[in-house]
């Protein structure tokens, strides 16, 4: 199945803003995002920590609804879903 992953701001600069992923049935949100980010180590490391978990500031949306990143490993992605990954920024 085809799933769209959108990366915003700095994530998009490193990984491309829109990635179409041919994903296996039942893949979890976190595994899907990992797959989409796998092409660029700097991008991957900006989103995931050493243990492979989402960094705690990262915002993940599934079909415009925010999901808790701690739950992203157990939330499956379905056909036609759109996953969006945002970094809030701290400067002023």
């Amino acid at each position: 199945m085809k799933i769209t992953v959108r990366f915003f701001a700095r994530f998009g600069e490193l990984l491309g803003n829109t990635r179409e992923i041919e994903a296996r049935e039942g893949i979890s949100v976190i595994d899907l995002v990992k797959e989409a980010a796998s092409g660029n180590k700097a991008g991957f490391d900006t989103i995931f920590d050493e243990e492979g978990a989402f960094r705690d500031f990262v915002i993940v949306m599934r079909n415009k609804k925010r999901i808790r990143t701690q739950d992203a490993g157990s939330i499956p992605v379905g056909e036609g879903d759109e996953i969006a990954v945002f970094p809030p920024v701290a400067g002023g």
Partner: protein
Amino acid sequence: MMLFGKEGQEHLQDATIFIAGAGGLGSPVSMYLAVLGVGTLIIADNDRVDQTNLNRQILYRDQDIGRRKAAVAGERLQELNPDITVRAVDATIDQNTVSSLTRDADGIVDALDDFPTRYLLNSAALERGIPLFHGGISGFFGQATTILPGKTPCLRCIIPRPPPAEVFPVAGVTAGFIGMIQVTEVCKYLLCRGDLLAGRLLLWDGMQGRIEEIPVETDPDCEACAGKYTAIS
């Protein structure tokens, strides 16, 4: 005057807004609030003007380098609008100062560059029941939202863990863009007009020329507001 009517202008005149920080966001925010005619502006910063600030911190000029930002900001804002009261405070915003700095304010504009201090502002806004107009920027990217205690998720619900300190320089135009969103929010709030960015986080990607908006929800386990307030549905 024409745009807001006499009554609207009086609402602005009667208001006191605290601007936390006189840097990239604080510069355009304070200048536009001054020319809007917001009656009392309190602006706090503990820094000196540095040459590297001048690409975005438009309160300052070349000849201000080395001077205290608060002193220069006070002068410049008063020049822009002699009819308002400007209180420019040379102070660090921390646990000891935040309550006295925000005591008289009807609203707080977040023009800071770090999240730990933003969380202090968030708590002050929750305690006093006044809005917090949040903005954050990096490079050509930014975000903004308006926090209404008791009605919207708080800043800590929305961004529970601080993003890493910025290592990328801010583009001056991004400070202008996000700062103008914050000022627009202040203006609407004071005039009770329009729809605020309440419960919505606006994300600006200048490189893509895209604005996204994500709905945000109250976190029942929020460290800052859990148990204190109930969100509207």
